[in-house]
């Protein structure tokens, strides 16, 4: 499965699609990036007159690139345009180390812990353009094809 095909199968659309490009994907993990636009909708309120990317959005970027893109790749033999992937986030535990501002590029690297009985659990890290650790954690979800 090609990387652009994985992105096409993602069940998200703007303003909630947080994958610009997938740079690596294998049985063991995925790597990709997202550049936060200056006018993302959440900057209007987070915070008042001081736009900073919310932690829940950083978690979402980590989950979309690190978990969902990898999950689609792992389910590649079962999914297609007809058999779309069904996804549910089931747990996450994430620590944040640095703020991310409008216009910043973040890179996400995930490493599979296990994929058994349709549950995918990964260690996920996020880095900024200076390659500094922004956040890291463990995210899990259930993935099946319809």
């Amino acid at each position, binding site marked *: 499965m090609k990387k652009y095909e994985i992105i096409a199968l993602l069940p998200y659309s703007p303003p909630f699609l947080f994958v610009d490009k997938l740079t690596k994907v294998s049985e063991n993990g995925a790597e990709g990036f997202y550049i936060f636009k200056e006018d993302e909708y959440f900057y209007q309120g987070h915070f008042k007159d001081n736009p900073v990317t919310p932690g829940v959005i950083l978690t979402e970027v980590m989950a979309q690139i690190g978990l969902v893109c990898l999950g689609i790749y792992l389910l590649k033999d079962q999914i297609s345009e007809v058999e779309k992937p069904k996804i549910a986030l*089931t747990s996450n535990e994430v620590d944040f180390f640095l703020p991310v501002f409008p216009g910043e590029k973040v890179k996400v690297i995930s490493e599979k812990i*296990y994929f*058994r*009985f349709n*549950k995918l659990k990964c260690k996920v890290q996020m880095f900024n353009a200076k390659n500094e650790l922004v956040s890291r954690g463990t995210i899990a979800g*259930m993935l099946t094809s319809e």
Partner: protein
Amino acid sequence: MTREEFITTLKKIVQPYIQDEEAFHNLTEDTDFINDLKINSANLVDVILDVEDEFDIEIDNDSMEKMLSVKAAIEIIESKLAS
């Protein structure tokens, strides 16, 4: 291992994932993991993985789908241990 010992071990394994404390307190062989203990499907996977580690066995997809109650879990563990 006796049935009581199996139940004690399973109780220890499921405890972190249960939602219904009363059902957990009154756990018997007939207790259902999802309907009684209110374990979600994602945590049921963790229960199965913990069972694999605890008993040093491998649970396949067919067995996993059947492992919905304490009784079914014990039967599957016993058959894997015997084979």
